[in-house]
Structure formats: C-alpha cells, structure tokens
C-alpha cells in the first residue's frame, strides 16, 4: 500500500512546525557494568509510549530520525532499527545523525527541515544513548598480534608469532574514555571545562553550589510530578525503572567538597560531582506540519521556531551555547531578556557558569560575539528549573532532544511564551533551538 506523498509544492504557505508530544525513558546512570537495555531498546521504549498516546496510526509517520553518538556495532542506522521495531512499516525511511553531544537536537533540527521543505508532514525524531554499554576494546597491538597469528603460513611461523605475545597487549581500551576526548585539540571534555573555569574565574565553590542546586531541583521536580514526559521502562531481565536514578537527594556542598578533581590533578576544580553523569537514556518527539495536525486531530505542545549551529575553538567547546544562541536571538531582534525559560545542558557546572559569565563579560561579547557591550544576565530561577545533566545525567545522543521536550513542558506549566534550549558540543560547536508556547500567545 503506497503512502500518501506529502505535498512538495514550494508555493504553499510556509507551514509551522509543531512539537506534538514527546516521551523519554528514565535516565539510568552507569554503575560500572552494562545496563539491561541497549540504545535501540531504549529508543523503542520511548517511541512506543509516545505512539501509544497519539490518535494517528503508526504508519502515518513519514520519516524517522534519531541521534546517537555511539551505537553498538549491530545498531548500524539505529533510527531504522527503531522505526522497524516500532512498526512504522517497511516504506517509512529512517536515518541516524551524529553531531556528538548535539545529536539529539540535530535529529529534531532535521525533522524541522524535512517538514519545512515539504518532504514530510509527520516526523518521529529523538535521541538515544547507552553509554554503559560502550565496549571494552582490544588494544591495537593485540589485534595485530591476532592477525599475524591467523595469517601464519607454517607451523614454525605460527609458533614464532605466538611467542611474540606480551601480557600487556591484553590491557583493554575503554571506549568511553576515548569518546570523551577530542582528538584534534587533544583535550578531554573535562579539561576544556577547567580551561573555561580558569578564564572566567569560576571557583570550586561556585561549581559545587551549582551542582547541589541541580540535584535539589531534580528531586523537587520528581516529588512534584514536574516531569510528565517520563514514562517507565521495563527490561526483560525482570527490572523496571520509573524515575531518573542519578539524583542524589543528600547532595551538599560539604559532600561535594570531599571529591578529588578528576581531569586536572592535583589542583583542578572539576570533579565527578560537578560534572554531568555518564548515563543511558532515550527521548522520542513527534513533529508535525499544519496539515498533519489538522488531518489527524493532533494536540500541540509547542511550536519550533528556529535553530542555530555555531562553531568555535574546540578547547573552549563549553561556550558553544553562547555562540549559537546569540545570532539566533539577534535574528529575531530578541535579547536574553526576551526569553522566559532556558534549558542549557549541564555538561559541567563550570561550563554552564562560564556561559553566563561570557554573556556578562563586555570584552568577550565584543571580541567573539560581535556585540557592542555585554549582552546581559540570565535569571538563575529561569535556567534549568527542574535539574539538568549534573543530576539527570547526559546520555550524549539524547540530551539535545530531552531539553527541547522538557522546555516545552516548562513553558506550558508556567504559561510562558518563549524558551531556548541550547547545548555545548564536543569538538567545539554549539546548538540552540527557539520554541514557543502557542497557548501563551497574547
């Protein structure tokens, strides 16, 4: 049965792009061993709960796009696997995107482009990541030794090559650590945060206080049912999770002060406690054109207005949000005060605080953002109001989608008009998305 082709006519009025609804799994932290659910499983779980709530049938979806920074080897084009397992049908194309920490937002952005360009009316997009399942790999020297052994042509050769074995060849390579280091600058993500902390004078105290607030806000959000987008997951090993499990209700500056710096020893400031946690999780969002909303009678949560990607020095990747948000807002003749609520992904407390400091810093704004003066302040009460990567965790491919979805719910709840979701991206980029709450428009 052929799918109805969406209209590709350029002459039709530019459609709004609507965020209909979204669902995410609870975020589950890495506890030293692989968790029960793969990235594909998590994506399927989030997608299933989302689609169960929609009035439209599953095969009405025109396209599926998922972000994932580190899919498993058997998850090539993970979006396609998720789409097929969700029952979208053989005819629904699906593709996967990777912009490191921005992959989740990239997927939403591509959904936005597809709908604007008339290629699709209904897009399922999102992000998924199972960092706990990042592999332990054989060291290259061991792989070479195995290859040599396999290719030996005689018994003598085989014995000689076997004798070349050294126990140190067996030391495993932790893929996770490799993934979190930028090969071009040679710095780990944490080191870039340390650099920013030095440049902007952000103290250990500042970072730890910020971290505590993140945990408190998440705990409060859980207690007050402020995370309606979370749906429980159940694994076939008999375990079930209803809530994000990274939250530390006992978090305090005193506790955090005891932790040792992790990225720059011995006198660094960034610790495991004031950094984002290593976590698994998935988020699924449904985007629709005006036509799809009408045809299927879909509810709408928010309008996705605009997006922006920016590049900057990889050594300062933490300032990515500043570089992406500024041109986007200026395009709409807005400034920091025009935005009611913010989601700025908490990769590191230092990095979030550095962004705020950069916008306050006249020299930085002049030299790097093309502004005449300091751009201003963001009210901390309007930033990451229900916690963030520090308390929730940061599944790399997912966070970009999570913050867009949660921001939409915050705007609804607070009856506010506009929000910006923005994040920093390893390798030196920033991404930002501007969304609006149609119900709060005057």
């Amino acid at each position: 049965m052929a799918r109805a082709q969406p209209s590709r006519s350029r002459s039709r009025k530019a459609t709004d792009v609507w965020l209909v609804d979204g669902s995410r799994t609870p975020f589950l932290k890495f506890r030293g061993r692989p968790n029960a659910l793969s990235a594909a499983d998590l994506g399927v779980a989030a997608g299933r709960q989302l689609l169960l709530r929609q009035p439209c049938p599953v095969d009405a979806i025109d396209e599926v796009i998922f972000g994932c920074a580190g899919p498993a080897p058997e998850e090539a084009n993970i979006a396609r696997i998720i789409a097929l397992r969700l029952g979208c049908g053989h005819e629904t194309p699906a593709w996967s995107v990777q912009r490191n920490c921005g992959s989740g937002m990239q997927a939403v952005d591509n959904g936005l482009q597809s709908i604007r360009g008339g290629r699709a009316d209904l897009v399922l997009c999102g992000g998924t990541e199972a960092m706990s399942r990042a592999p332990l790999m054989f060291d290259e020297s061991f792989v070479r030794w195995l290859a040599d052994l396999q290719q030996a042509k005689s018994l003598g050769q085989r014995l000689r090559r076997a004798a070349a074995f050294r126990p140190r060849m067996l030391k495993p390579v932790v893929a996770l650590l490799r993934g979190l280091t930028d090969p071009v600058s040679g710095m780990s993500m944490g080191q870039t945060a340390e650099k920013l902390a030095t440049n902007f004078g952000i103290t250990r105290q500042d970072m730890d206080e910020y971290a505590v607030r993140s945990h408190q806000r998440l705990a409060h959000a859980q207690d007050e049912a402020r995370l309606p987008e979370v749906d429980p997951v159940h694994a076939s090993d008999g375990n079930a999770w209803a809530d994000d499990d990274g939250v530390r209700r006992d978090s305090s500056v005193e506790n955090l002060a005891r932790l040792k710096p992790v990225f720059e020893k011995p006198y660094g400031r960034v610790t495991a406690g004031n950094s984002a946690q290593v976590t698994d999780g998935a988020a699924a969002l449904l985007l629709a054109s005006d036509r799809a909303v009408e045809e299927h009678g879909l509810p709408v949560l928010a309008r996705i207005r605009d997006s922006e990607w920016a590049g900057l020095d990889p050594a300062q990747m933490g300032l990515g949000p500043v570089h992406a948000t500024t041109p986007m807002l200026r395009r709409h003749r807005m400034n920091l005060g025009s935005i009611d609520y913010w989601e700025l992904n908490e990769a590191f407390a230092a990095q979030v605080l550095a962004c705020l400091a950069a916008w306050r810093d006249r020299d930085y704004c002049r030299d790097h953002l093309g502004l005449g003066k300091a751009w201003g302040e963001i009210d901390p009460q309007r930033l990451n109001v229900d916690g963030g990567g520090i308390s929730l965790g940061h599944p790399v491919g997912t966070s970009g989608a999570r913050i867009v979805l949660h921001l939409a719910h915050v705007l609804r709840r607070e009856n506010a008009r506009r929000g910006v979701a923005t994040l920093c991206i390893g390798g030196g980029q920033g991404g930002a998305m501007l969304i609006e709450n149609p119900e709060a428009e005057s």
Partner: protein
Amino acid sequence: MSRTDLQHVELEFGSDGIAWLWLDVADAGANTLSTPVIAELEEALGRVEEERPRGLVIGSRKPGFIAGADVREFGRLESVDEAATLIRRGQDLMDRIAALPAPTVARIQGHCLGGGLELALACRYRVADNDPGTRLGLPEVKLGIHPGFGGSARLPMIVWAPSALDLMLSGRTLDGRAARRMGVVDQAVSPWQVDETARRILLADPGPRRVRGWRRLANSGTGRALLRPIMERQLRGKVRREHYPAPYALLDLWARHGGEPLPRRLRAERESLVRLVEGRTANNLIRVFLLQDRLKTEARDTREAIPEHVHVVGAGTMGGDIAAWLALNGKRVTLVDPSGEAIAATLRRARELFQRRLKTPARVTAALDRLIPDPAGRGAARADLVIEAIIEDVDAKRSLYADLEARLPAHAVIATNTSSLPLEQLAEGLTDPGRLIGLHFFNPVAKMPLVEVVAGRASDAAALDRGQALVAGIDKLPLRVRSAPGFLVNRILMPYMLKAARLHAEGEVREKIDRAARRFGMPMGPLELADSVGLDVCVAAAETMAEAQGLEIPERFRQYVQEGRLGRKSGRGFYEYRKGKPRRSRVRADSAELDRLGETLVEPLLAEAERCRDDGIVADGDLVDAGAIFGTGFAPFTGGPLHYLAERGQSRVGENHGSDSQGDASGSESTASTSPASPDRDRTAG
C-alpha cells in the same frame, strides 16, 4: 509440459530431464494421503515410469509438505480388511517410489509428518529447509498406532536404530537442521535454496544414505537383543502397555523383525498396525485427534474479524503469561498493572518462553517488542479485545469495566479470565452487557491447550465468535461453554479432588491415592493437583459450586487452609514441597487394589461429566470429552469420560445404558458415535 487432468497432483517434465511432482490437494489447507490422493499419486507415478526422466523431485505447492495419512479416513474404517487394504496400498505406493530407476528427492518445506515422512524416506534423497516451521517426524504413536507406510522398515536403514526408534517411539518432531544432524535428511538449506539443492543432488546422485560401520550392529540380532530391554524399560517409565500399546508394538516389531529383508518387515509392519487399529486405544486416540480438529475448525467458521490488538489488564501469573502467549503468537499486546515489578517479571518469563520456542534473537526481540508495557493503560483506546485478569472481586472488576467502557472502541470485546464469578453479575452496570464474555485460560498457560469461551446470558454472538477466533488464532483450543459455576473443567475436577480429600481424611494414604489416579491415566494425582492449584483456591471454588452441585467440602481441607497449608505455593499442602517438587514416600500396593481405588476416585468426575452434558454446559457430549481431555488431561486413551462410560457400558445418571462393553453405539445419541472413532460431525480433510 504440465499435466492438468489430475486434481491433487501436478506433474512437470523439465527440459533438463528432471521431473517435478507437486502435491496440491484440492480444497485443503494441507496435503494428506487420503485414498483419492494416493490414487492420483499412483497414476502420476505411472506416467513417470513411462517418461523415464533423469530424476524426480517430489514437492508440495502448499506451505507444508505432507501432513500424513488422512486421519478422518482412518477413523471411518469399518473393518479390519479395509484397514489392511489401505495400509497395503500405501506401502505399495512407497515401494513403487523406491523402485523407480531414476533418482528421487523429496523437497521438504513445512510439516513433513507420518505418511509424508514415509514417502520422503522412500525417496532416495531428502532435502529440507532450515525454517523453524519445518518439522519432520513420525507422530503416529500419539494416535495409538505406528507408521504403516514402510516408515518403521526404512528409517532404521537410513538412521541408526536407537535414533530411529527414539523418533518413532516419542513421536517428536525435528526441525531441518536437527533432521540433517540425525541423518533423516541429506541437506537443510535456506528456503530459497531448496529447489536448486534438490536439482543438484539429483544430477550428482551420490548414493543413498545408509547406516554404516559399527552402527549397523544395532540392527543385528545381538544388537536388537541388547537394546530392546533398555528401550522397553524407558518406555515403561513413561506409559503403560495396557493404555498405550502402540509404542510397545513398535518396539516388538523392530526387535523381532529388524534383521529380516524388507518385504518381510513391511508385512510385519502391516500386521502389527492392523492389530492396533482393531484395539480401543487407537480408536480413542483418533477420536481425540478429531475432537481437537473439530475445536479448531469450528473457530474458523466465523465472519468476525480476528482480534489483533489485545489489551491485558493484570500482570499476575495468569495475566502476564496470557500476555506473553499472545505476543508469542503474533498479537500486539498492551499490558497494564499498577506494579512495574509485575510487568517486568512478566517480561522476564516471556523472554524465557520466547527463547525456548523461537530460538533466534531476531524473533525473540520481535516477540518482546509486541509485548508492550502500558502502565498508563493507553492501549485500551486501540484494543480489539480486552482480557481482564485482576483479582477475583466483583466490585473491582465492575469498576474496571466501567472505566474501560469509556475508553474502548465500539467493537472491542471485554473478556474476563474469572474462574468463579458469574458473568451475569459482572455484566451488571455495563452499558452494553453483550460485549462481556469469558475467556478462561488454564495454568500454566504455555502448556494447557484448552481455553473455555464462556457465554453469559447476555453475551453477544459476535463477541463470542471474536473471542473464539482469537483463541484459535493463538494456537489454543477454544471450547464454548455456558456460564455456570465452575464452567466445565473446574466443575468436573472439583468432585474428583474433594473425593480424594475425603478418602485421605478417612485414612487412605496420600501417595496411594495419587498413584491410583495416575495408574488410571490421569496426568496428576488429585491431591497433588489440589496442591498445585492452591488449597485456598480450591475451597473458594468449591464454595461457589457447592450449592449448585451439592458438594461437601471435607473439614480437613478447610483446616489445612486455616493452618496456612495452601499447597505448593506455601511449601506445604497435602504434601511437603522442596523446590516445587513434592516429597513422596514409597508405598506398597497391589495392582488390583490400585485399579479399584482408581475407579473409585474417578467416579465423581464421570458423574459430573454426565451432569454437565445434561445441563447443556457445552453443546454435546463429545465436547464434554474434549474439555476433559484438553483441560484436565483426562486419560486420552479412553476417549474422554463420557466415551469411557459408554464403552464400559454404564451410565451414572438417568436412563442411558450401553448395550455391551465393546464401544458400539449406546442408547444416548450425544455420547456415542456411529463408528468407534469418529465423533458426530463428519468433516472432510483440511
């Protein structure tokens, strides 16, 4: 070039000299070797003998190869001579295939059972595919007979005797790969390779498989003399000769004639089979097979759409296992329960089930993806049918139905798994009481084939049809029953269990009671059964039925429940349990005593079965027998409790008395049938 004047067989002669014989029995879903089909095969073979092709491929145009001989035809045989003639004809056909000068290959996809495998064994080669749906076997023992188209003679020549006998004595089936490992087929390849492989094997013609080397000794006189007692001992551990003579006859057949030339073995096979067909067990097991077939085909008669999305409420043992079974059989299931742990535990059990049945990871994942945890109960909006398996409480169920009614699509059926609450009570308060039916599954869901489809007084015919169609579509046997306390199965089991409890209270040893019942042919003794159901559940159920059936619950039962001795689940009931198994002591008892005790124990079940028939709980007496056999495991070799009574020549209730004990038609028209084997309804194959 294709011959089109045959109805069930298509014959093509290719330009490369290879002939293809395709079986495609008209108006049937599966190929069976009935007399008309055998006749056409004979004619087709005649043409093959004339044309002298380079090779012959025998295949099927249906999803399966050949399902076996036509059991209905077998059941309709009126005399020993007829049986002998039919068997001889089948053997001759196979001989003729084996005697063809050109090489022959059986191209096997799907089921290849009984006579179908015997035909394949008569071919020089066999090629199968490795699809999990492809099953090969000789399950005749399950019908109380054994292979009669030469299988018992040919298989031990191709596969060494112990494997051959194991396959025939157990009646189990092999998939393509297992068949290859055993040597039953020469190749097991991907489905799209089957035709080419068949062609190539004919062109290469490497020579038929034969048992070689030291394995041939198994068929020698010494080998048979040594192996026979071992195998007989294994058999005795599983089935009694008096109840199930067929496997013993097969073993005798091989042990006595295994070393003789083929024609003599074929004659011995024929004679042994004829003797079995005369006996009661074969007739009764064929009757059971036909009853099973009846339940399946009745479900297909509906024009109602088969439910595809099932919403299951309640993830306890029953609800969860039902949800898993539904997903295993291709249904989309949403499962709701307030406890996330219960849902997750269901997924764990489901994964174990799927891994056992589906084997490959891709299929297991696909099945798990069909089993959707739905804590918010959103699946109701899309459901075709709801199965409710929550606690046995009228108010809880009623309020659930009211909530569901508001959210379900108009066509959705509400099915309750209740075993004790009357549907009429539950339906009160529904805007449309017609949509409520009962679908009563048995524990454990994966093993018990029967599902009672319960019609309340107000239940809609369409709703019942849809429920029945769902049950048939998930590889279970639907039995329509009227709503009354205990429905059918629990109602006939209860007096049986209570009687046993009473005898126990009066001093009878519990191991003796259970052993006597098993000796009679019940799969489990009544006290162990009560323990596994749960003594509290039994008492509650008995109380529901007590008034209607005039049951008396022995004090001992209630006492146990009060003491917390609830059976296996609490570690102690009538027996003590360790790791789920009862600790039984040895008892000495002589056979005659056990036989008498067995009859005494079963008597209340038989009486209740008659009452069920008379009360019209199911449509006729045959269905009472079907319910007893498939729902309780009642000795299948008896043909069912009512059939057993008729054969025994007695009846407990009312005026029906059989004329003699040989199983001829008795006075009651609903119990007996016109021939020993086939029940009332006469249907054509397929």
